[in-house]
């Protein structure tokens, strides 16, 4: 509980609202889409979630990897700073996994619960296996993009960089959606395999990198320049 | 208390002098504690070490006594002793003046005349 509290303290009020509201809102839209428009909008929903997630990431960790960042010092002078720092990343990571895998799971369960699977299957004559592969692929695709996107965007403390990465993310999801619909099943399997590898490797890398960034800040920079003010 | 930061007289001496005259004037009674070193430093906007040095000066002169952890309290002032102490100071200063007058080849008369002039100037100021 205290870990979640630490995480939320790192979010601005707007980011807190977005974190809770967007997935809930998207679920409502998804149900509405299924019932009213007879259309499965999972990919669109995931695109919006990706957009919201990367922007929230900025308001939590923007610039935390930047070269002249001193923020690690703020944690390092606290008796429990190291734990808080790592816990915040941990909660953020878990939230991400829940978001990118939980949402498609709930959404697809709803499709079946409401008996609307025919809508998706009718589209381009998809098979059940193809449909499920596509859905799992969407989850891994969104997750992998958000991992890599945030690793890049945290290098700068510029909202525009995060915004650009977020917008590209939505385009990525749209293109991904087209590939998902029209690619034959063996291509889907290959893409999914690649995405799983990227996701797992990315998660491990992010965990390692967060700790490394903190540990490194206790020691010398590799290329030390004497005349820098940080002597 | 007035502190002149740009004066030739070191600040700790200024403080010591003023506390001394306060003690002699009876503003601090026997057994009274002087303001705490760090409190006075804060009030006067000067460093702790400066007030500390002023208090040590007063202690050396026997006006106050330091108590570990409690501060400095004012001693019983022996007025006769104080007077003698001051007289000794006057003698010292005048001896120095006489020596300087010898170097300047002033006559005794001129020296006494200078002293009288200075006294009348001081009285005129007051």
């Amino acid at each position: 509980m205290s870990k979640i509290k630490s995480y939320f303290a790192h979010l601005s009020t707007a980011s807190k609202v977005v974190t809770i509201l967007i997935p809930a809102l998207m679920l409502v839209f998804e149900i509405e889409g299924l019932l009213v428009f007879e259309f499965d909008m999972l990919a669109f929903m995931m695109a919006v979630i990706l957009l919201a997630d990367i922007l929230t990431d900025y308001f939590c960790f923007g610039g935390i990897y930047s070269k002249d960042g001193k923020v690690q010092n703020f944690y390092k002078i606290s008796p429990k700073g190291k734990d808080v720092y790592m816990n915040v990343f941990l909660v953020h990571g878990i939230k991400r996994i829940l978001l990118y895998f939980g949402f498609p799971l709930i959404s697809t369960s709803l499709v079946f619960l409401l008996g609307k699977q025919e809508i998706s299957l009718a589209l381009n004559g998809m098979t059940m296996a193809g449909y499920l592969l596509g859905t799992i692929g969407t989850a891994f695709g969104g997750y992998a993009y958000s991992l890599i996107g945030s690793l890049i965007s945290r290098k700068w403390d510029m909202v525009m960089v995060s915004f650009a990465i977020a917008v590209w993310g939505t385009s990525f999801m749209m293109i991904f959606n087209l590939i998902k619909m029209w690619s034959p099943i063996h291509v889907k399997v290959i893409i999914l395999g690649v995405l799983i590898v990227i996701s797992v490797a990315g998660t491990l890398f992010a965990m390692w990198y967060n700790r490394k960034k903190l540990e490194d800040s206790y020691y010398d920079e590799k290329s030390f320049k004497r005349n820098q003010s940080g002597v | 208390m007035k502190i002149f930061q740009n004066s030739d007289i070191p600040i700790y001496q200024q403080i010591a002098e003023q506390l001394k005259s306060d003690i002699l004037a009876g503003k601090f009674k026997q057994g009274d504690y002087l303001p705490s070193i760090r409190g006075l430093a804060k009030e006067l906007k000067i460093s702790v070490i400066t007030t500390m040095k002023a208090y040590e000066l007063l202690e050396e002169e026997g006006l106050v006594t330091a108590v570990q952890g409690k501060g400095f309290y004012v001693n019983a002032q022996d007025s006769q002793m104080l007077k003698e102490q001051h007289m000794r100071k006057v003698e010292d200063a005048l001896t120095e003046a006489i020596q300087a007058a010898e170097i300047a080849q002033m006559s005794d008369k001129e020296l006494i005349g200078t002293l009288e002039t200075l006294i009348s100037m001081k009285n005129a100021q007051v």
Partner: protein
Amino acid sequence: MVTENAITINNLTKSFKGFKLEIPHLEIPKGFATALIGENGAGKTTLLNILAGVRLDYKGQISCMGENFANGADNAKVKEKIGYTGPGNYYLPHWTVNQVEELTGLLFDDFNKDRFRQICMELAIFPDGNFAGKKKVKELSDGTKMKLMLAGMLARDTDLLIMDEPASPLDPVMREKLCDTIRGYIDSGAGEKSVFFSTHNVSDMEYVTDYAIIMEHGQVVEAGFVEDLKEKYILVKGDKEMEQAARPYLYSVSSNSYGFEGICLAENMNALAGMNLSTERPSLFQISVAVMKANSRIMMNKR
């Protein structure tokens, strides 16, 4: 004078490329404000970072507020007693003041929210006098960012403040306020609370400095209570004719076409007897400059 130490350092070394911090022994007295003075690159930030636990790549033994740590061990206990502000802002720019308040509370059990708000007011962080929690760190000026760090640090219950260049980004009025704050902190501890700060603004901080440590090229070249230093060194002024004769005994000399002035060790004053010179008690600034210049010269000759 018998004093306890807030910090005792033994055999401290830390090597960078082309730079070595080397302090065989150093004591920082308890109950006083100690200034760390030195040129850029003298090793001030490195020393303060080691003491605050922000750097761990050093060798040596440190005893700080009764806690011992050595050779880069991280000591969480001592951090409960230390408040620290860095030379640069250590909050993320997009954090709001409310977030800074909440996060500081999360990181430090002794953080007092009400006191934080009160100090924010005292330090005039918000121009209109109302606590504006939604204000973002990046919207604040460098001086105000420093004030916000100071507020976060002072709202805790600490025994030692370590501040790296706190005066630099502040305007003259705020520097005065900083001095008052330091004196108030020391007074509140009745001899138990100490302050250790680095500064380039020696003149502005002179009347809050009890003990001075002067560093040069990674070494401590002078350390002592300011009142003692002012007796150890004497400011000498003289006419032009005297300059050549006096020069060998002076620490640092600045001269113009009419005369010269320099700092002389009190013990060398005998050598200057007979010359028509006038003497003065030097300011801490004058002592610092003289000691730094003299040591730069010695170092240069060694190379």
